[in-house]
């Protein structure tokens, strides 16, 4: 893996821990793995992204229904597949949003898609054509996995320091005009 890919992986891990902890979940990251074992029953969410220089990739999140239910309690205590898919889709959206906000001051603007989700039994994902790595987080004693895959353009513009525009506000903040 390239140094830039490793940087992106570190940023994603930081963003994920911040996100889960912002939802009151005790979280830690386990060592990265190449390919996790197939889950007996799980929800999968994915969002694609692109950069103006031609770089592109996706974030895939995989979690068991119990892991998702422990992360967020829906109204009415109804844990239907549709609701669990929606919750993981929104978490993947917030996670990629956080990665985007980390990258903005480094001169990289991600253009984000919207989440696609599915309920799966014995999920096995094919490997993407681009480099990828799985991260695993223990969240409220459940494992949530995230796969980052990125095809970097030759001149991916990741600056060493905060050279680009900073974000307007941080997560959880509000600006009134």
């Amino acid at each position, binding site marked *: 893996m390239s140094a830039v890919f490793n940087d992106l992986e570190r940023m994603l891990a930081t963003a994920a821990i911040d996100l889960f902890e912002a939802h009151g979940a005790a979280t830690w990251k386990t060592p990265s793995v190449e390919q996790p074992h197939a889950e007996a029953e799980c929800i999968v969410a994915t969002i694609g992204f692109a950069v103006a220089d031609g770089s592109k990739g996706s974030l895939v999140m995989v979690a068991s229904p119990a892991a998702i239910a422990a992360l967020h309690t829906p109204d009415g205590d109804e844990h239907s597949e549709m609701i669990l898919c929606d919750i993981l889709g929104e978490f993947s959206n917030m996670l990629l949003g956080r990665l985007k906000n980390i990258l903005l001051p480094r001169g990289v603007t991600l253009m984000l898609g919207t989440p696609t989700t599915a309920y799966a039994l014995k999920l096995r994902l094919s490997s993407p054509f681009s480099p990828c790595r799985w991260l695993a987080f223990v969240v409220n004693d459940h494992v949530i996995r995230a796969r980052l895959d990125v095809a970097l353009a030759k001149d991916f513009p990741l600056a060493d320091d905060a050279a680009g525009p900073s974000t307007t506000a941080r997560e959880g903040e509000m*600006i009134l005009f």
Partner: protein
Amino acid sequence: MASKVLVVDDSMMVRQQVKRALGAADFVIVEAQDGMDALEKIMQNQDVCLIVCDVNMPRMGGLDFLEALRKIPVFVSVPVVMLTTEAQPDLVARAKGFGAKGWIIKPFKPELLVAAAQKLSASKAA
């Protein structure tokens, strides 16, 4: 009569969270799942005093919805607060250019949203 708020987000989880926060403060919530749906819902609920709207959504995103909304004379001044994971300055500037009144970055703090809703709905009523 209770003030009515239109919540536009493709995530049911976010709509529930907003509904819970604003419902506890006596707002009545109308839900829409994207910008296209929101344009339909607001025509049926022209007494909406505030719109809380996501940015990235399928079919029609929040900023395109806001632009379309401002072309309808009766909704030129209805307050809109964007609720999103995005913090990109040019997106914030675009929303402000279309007359949005606020920008909240998810996950939101319920008390901040309620305070904004009370302030903005009061200004709409005045």
